[in-house]
């Protein structure tokens, strides 16, 4: 397992990132953690329809998204708001989607991120096709896809990995092994020792990294991205991490895991070791931290306001994105729907 920055903040070898870049990514991690906690709180108040917190996985998501080019494709899941934001998906849309407003699924034109996938497994194939389209059009883009340890049991994981390898496509398969698929522990999900070694079955490189280690995640993903961009095909990365919170806000993790296990992982907090690293280089101060947190809060509060200001599709617009042009039966049904609400 690749580790470059230990939980106590020691760098093994040369730091792969400049202090400056490390500061920027630390800042990003503070922002996404603020977002995550805010969303979990909003859900408890009934202001979000559902929420899948990613606390503990910040380094995995921020560190893997950081080396992407802005036009690279990203196909991620419900738990990957941090990665999606890194790739340009605005806070307010990430939130709007979670309030139950379809418009949250539409990123701005310049953002090449698909709406988050709720179904487990199927979306990996989309990254394979997107990488193909990039190659078809002679673009330099690659595609990255995010999924969990549980998703590796789905047939579509297998088909996506195999097809990407068969056609030598520029895909990075980024697995956040957060030890659980809802209540199912990773060890019961599959009997392979690591998820990374599943790559062998496809003749693809596979690498396991400490997913709570920003440096290791960044380094391994940057290499995979380079390989993909150079036309040398796909890579599977297993980022070993931990979901500190519940699966979603309606899950009760005490049913399937011990608090002591959670405690152990808290001690491997992905932000803390970067903080120590920066602090030891005089690049972190409590004041800066405070400023970051305040800025993040303000930014996210504003996003919440924007998202909550969106009023949903309403009775007419639920029909209007089924097809490019509304076919006659939907014209009729829309009229019926409007009549039924007195419009």
């Amino acid at each position, binding site marked *: 397992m690749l580790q470059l920055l230990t939980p106590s903040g020691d760098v093994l070898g040369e730091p792969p990132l400049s202090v400056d870049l490390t500061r920027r990514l630390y800042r990003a991690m503070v922002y996404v953690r603020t977002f995550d906690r805010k969303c979990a709180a909003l859900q408890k108040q009934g202001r979000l*329809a*559902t929420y899948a917190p990613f606390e503990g996985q910040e380094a995995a998501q921020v560190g893997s998204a950081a080396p992407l080019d802005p036009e690279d494709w990203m196909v991620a899941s*419900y738990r990957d708001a941090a990665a999606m934001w890194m790739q340009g998906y605005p806070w307010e849309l990430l939130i709007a*989607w979670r*309030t*139950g*407003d*379809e418009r949250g699924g539409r990123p701005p034109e310049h953002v090449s991120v698909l709406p988050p996938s*709720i*179904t*487990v*497994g*199927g979306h990996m194939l989309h990254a394979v096709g997107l990488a193909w389209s990039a190659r078809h059009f002679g673009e330099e883009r690659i595609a990255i896809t995010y999924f969990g340890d*549980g*998703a590796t*049991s*789905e*047939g*579509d994981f297998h088909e996506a990995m195999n097809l990407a390898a068969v056609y030598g496509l520029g895909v990075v398969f980024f697995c956040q092994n957060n030890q659980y*698929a*809802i*209540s*199912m522990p990773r060890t*019961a*999900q*599959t009997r392979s020792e690591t998820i990374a070694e599943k790559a062998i079955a496809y003749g693809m490189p596979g690498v396991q990294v400490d997913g709570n280690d920003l440096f290791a995640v960044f380094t391994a993903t940057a290499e995979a991205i380079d390989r993909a961009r150079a036309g040398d095909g796909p890579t599977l990365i297993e980022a070993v991490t931990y979901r500190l919170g519940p699966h979603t806000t*309606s*899950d*009760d993790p005490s*049913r*399937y895991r011990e608090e002591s296990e959670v405690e152990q992982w808290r001690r491997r907090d992905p932000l803390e070791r970067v903080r120590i690293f920066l602090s030891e280089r005089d690049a972190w101060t409590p004041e800066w931290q405070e400023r970051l947190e305040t800025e993040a809060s303000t930014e996210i509060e504003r996003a919440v306001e924007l998202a909550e200001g*969106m*009023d*949903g*599709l*309403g*009775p007419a*617009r*639920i*029909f209007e994105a*089924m097809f490019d042009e509304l076919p006659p*039966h*939907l014209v009729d*049904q829309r009229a019926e*729907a409007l009549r*039924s*609400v007195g419009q």
Partner: protein
Amino acid sequence: MAVLTLAQALNQGLEQALAEHPEVVILGEDVGRTGGVFRITDGLQRRFGPERVVDTPVAESGIVGMAFGMAVGGMRPVVEIQFMGFSYPAFDQIVNHVARIRNRSRHRFTAPMVIRMPYGGGIGAAEHHSESTETIYVHTPGLKVVVPSRPADAKGLLASAVEDPDPVIFLEPIRLYRAVRETVPEDPHTVPIGEASIEREGTDVTLVSYGAMMKETRQAAEVLAERGVSAEVVDLRTLVPLDTDRLLASVEKTGRVVVVHEAPRTLGFGAEVAALVAERALYSLQAPPKRVTGWDTVVPLKKSEQYYLPSVGRIVAAAEETLTA
């Protein structure tokens, strides 16, 4: 006799099935340690152990295909698919294998198994969590399709499904899990598959529905009653085999029919009901049959879901239209 919710009735039914039939096992994602995302299997793994109540990897095709093998081998697997929208990866196994093995082997091998799926909207869930695609199973020869709307029926139909020699798709209305309560016989009992229930007698119009939409349908009958319209309410309970006799008898009596479901309209179950009525009871009809259904769209997310699901108002209006047609 205790007063139970639909969720509790199902839990009790599953517990009794495990206790009575050593060949029954429950399989699904998170059904064991957590008792399922809706807690329908709560406590069962503790009581019967992890060999009878089995947590599975995230692999719907695998779960169903493996359960199929278990059933052929003589067991009675009861599979839980976490939400109906996640049954699609298992569609091939269900259509090409589960539904066919009896015919492929001329009765030599059979797949007596139950595939339980929470279905339907109304709880503001995420994408793919509000599906009501019973059509795809109803249209598949070789499957029975059951959709209870009441706790006692749920328990009784589940017992019948477990004992049925053929595969049963068992659809559980999510939004009724904890929204309806009634007294449910403590002892194991069965409700026969294939019998509709005339919930309320009436003379002016027949309201036909099943599962989750029974709630709004019953309410609509109340509203109509207040307005002096006598509605007969039919809870189909089983879509395959359909109790065509009771359905047609009711329509022949009232001369008018409104069928209600939340599935999309085109080739939703209402199409079959309307077709049967037109074919076999045309001369009794005093007005065109009406379909009050979900639209031919994706089920909207929380903020707009209300514009999709049939409302009491829509049902009442449709019934009234049949009376003025």
